[in-house]
């Protein structure tokens, strides 16, 4: 019973963790992409459509990643090349994503999906308790863990990651040192898009293997809040993501058991929790100032 609940929590947390990891990298480079929701839903529809048409959920995963990444390129072109307002452009990306995905997904509504099956590691999965939880999961779960380890290594051990953090801290100085600010940011935005797309693929191939319009239901926005919650540190995304996953699943179970609280109030819990968490994290101005990448959201036009 507990094991089953834990498994559902992980399934609910995985898309949040993945999307937040992507956004974390983008924000570490100084780009605020509010289009996570849009990229996520694009990933979901691309993944579902591809899996449905080819019958291969793995091709679906690839399509989800590609869809999200391509879509993020649009954001990159506007904010990095044309230096448009990042907040407004991110909103545009979300609105466009919800529209385009609804249009693309029109003919898939109500169709049975292709579920991504778990990959069971033979011996390891027999370990009592943790075996089923950690070693009999689907590909995307494993990817989410690999992402955290990989991003953590990339940001704090690799030279390119160091450059990326430097750009996020002070793009003027980074430019003066000869680091290519715009190119690095393009890559970061692209990575964020790929992650959001993967998170979307998880929604339409694992979490609820079907296509429903607006099925991301604000998860992209919660992922954005998670990045703030995690103070831009990868491992804290894992903790925050699972906390939110637990809240989501907890309220579902509470609804099923009929605890006497209206289901809508329980459904609102993750959103209310997001607000509470944001307030707690941001009320200390000094720590916020120190943790936030200093050039976040600021336009950069190199002078020559």
């Amino acid at each position, binding site marked *: 019973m507990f094991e089953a609940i834990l498994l559902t929590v992980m399934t609910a947390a995985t898309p949040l963790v993945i999307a937040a990891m992507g956004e974390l990298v983008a924000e570490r480079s100084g780009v605020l992409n509010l289009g996570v929701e849009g990229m996520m839903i694009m990933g979901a529809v691309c993944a579902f459509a591809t899996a449905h048409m080819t019958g291969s959920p793995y091709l679906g995963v690839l399509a989800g990643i590609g869809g999200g990444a391509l879509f993020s390129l649009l954001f990159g072109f506007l904010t990095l090349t044309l230096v448009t307002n990042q907040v407004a452009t991110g909103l545009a990306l979300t609105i466009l994503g919800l529209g385009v995905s609804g249009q693309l997904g029109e003919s898939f509504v109500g169709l049975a999906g292709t579920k991504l099956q778990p990959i069971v590691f033979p011996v390891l999965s027999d370990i009592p308790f943790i075996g089923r939880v950690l070693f009999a999961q689907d590909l995307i779960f494993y990817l989410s863990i690999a992402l955290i380890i990989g991003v953590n290594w990339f940001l704090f051990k690799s030279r390119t990651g160091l450059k990326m*953090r430097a750009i*996020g*801290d*002070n793009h003027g100085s980074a430019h003066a*040192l000869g680091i290519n600010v715009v190119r690095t940011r393009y890559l970061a935005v692209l990575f964020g898009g790929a992650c959001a797309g993967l998170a979307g693929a998880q929604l339409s191939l694992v979490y609820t293997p079907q296509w429903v319009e607006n099925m991301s239901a604000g998860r992209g926005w919660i992922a954005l809040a998670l990045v703030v919650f995690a103070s831009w540190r990868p491992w804290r995304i894992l903790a925050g993501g699972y906390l939110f996953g637990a809240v989501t699943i907890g309220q579902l179970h509470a609804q099923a058991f009929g605890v006497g609280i209206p289901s809508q109030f329980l459904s609102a819990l993750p959103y209310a929790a997001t607000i509470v968490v944001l307030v707690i994290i941001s009320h200390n101005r000094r720590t916020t100032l120190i943790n936030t990448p*200093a050039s976040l959201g600021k336009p950069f036009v190199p002078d020559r």
Partner: protein
Amino acid sequence: MVSSQDQGEPSLLSVRGLTKLFGTFSACDGIDLDIAPGEIHALLGENGAGKSTLVKMLFGVLQPSAGQIFWQGKPVSISSPGQARNLGIGMVFQHFSLFEALTVGENIALSLDPKISLSKISQEAAALSHAYGLPLDPNMHVADLSVGERQRIEIVRALLQNPKLIILDEPTSVLTPQEAERLFETLFKLKAEGRSVLYISHRLDEVRQICDRATVLRHGKVTGACDPKQETPASLARMMVGSDVAAVHREELGAPGEALLEVSGMSVAARTPFSVSLKDVALAVRAGEVLAIAGVAGNGQGELFDALSGEYPVSDKDAIKIRGRSVGRMRINDRRLLGAGFVPEERHGHAAVAQMSLSDNLLLARAHSDRKAFLSGGFASVIRHGAVRSAAARICQAMDVRKSGEDPAAGSLSGGNLQKFIVGRELDRQPSVLVVNQPTWGVDAGAASRIRQALIDLAKAGSAVVVISQDLDEIFEVATSIAVISEGKLSQAYPAGELSLERIGLLMGGIHDSTQHASHDAAMAGEAADAH
């Protein structure tokens, strides 16, 4: 071609006719410069003389508009900092190009070969920093370091690339005397190893102490080349600020009246990690007086202005008095109602909004104090655009503001014309107290003299004027008394006639009267005496 200099010794770096234009303004105008191997070469000049522009071109941050750079006799075009580093030029910026959120080791690694591992860089940096007497912990975050320690990172970062020429931009402007002393030792070590140093400064004593040769810039042009050890501070100063300093003619202002602005015991904590705290500031300005506050940039001038203007009121209401009223806790508009006017340093985004018209920018400073003239409709506060526009036109006329169109955007005016407007907007209401921060910074000569004249005229008419400035020409031109701000501390005010250029230079360098700050000045005074 210029592969050798006058003495026949080959130059490490030569510069011929180097020019940088920003629009029509020439920041550098036909600069010639030669640096020999193994010498410490001073580049002297006031703020805005073109020193920073010149070195940015040498380091590939800016591209010259004309002229040629020669490296070891060969013509080179330095198009990026990376290329400058490859040639063997290292740079220590005045405004450090450091990343606060990263560690010391990471900051250093960013400018080095990516193939070397971070831990190896950290080791080398630690070893090197100890060898040159600049101790550093590679694992510390830059945000937690003092300014002096930050500068060490920049120096070590430059040294790790084994440069032949190291450029230091105003390195001691942010250091304590003890730190500066240690820096000089490092520079002598570098010189002994045969490296060259281009040392940019406006501090005469230290240039005379450590430099072998000096090139002096003024208004973007070379005004002198000399051996600083053969010169006196006064002769160097004359090259730097121009020989016309002594010749300035200032009209007598008549006997001063009652004190209109008084500040006593005002201490203000630093608002951000990057600002300076004010320490026990006291001053008094009487009717008919112009008090000039001199000082090197970043010593608390902005913070002093914020406190005086009431943009950031202070906690003690008696710390500031305007016309006898305690105003410490009042906000800027209430102080304006008492007859005070203010002109901030930064024109764009503080004194004026670039995208807005001149009349809107007039309203910015005077909507509250001139409510009756500029607003109508009672509670609704409808702007009387006609009245504001004609007032703006009146100001433009009075200050001879040259503009295109009837009421153009502030951003479309040249710096000098916009500054005339910003000053004129306050003068127009004949304030009894006027506080001006850097009235003529980056302003052409014509506009500058116009503005200075207006400030003198205002004082003559019976107002108290405070001019915060880094420009010594200006200070001697307008001041009846002079005080100097250094590290958030303000010296006592001296009558303008009693202060020599050298004396101000000493005060700016933190050498206060022994009665005031005995401990830390004894060392400096001794050092200055040695140099003489």
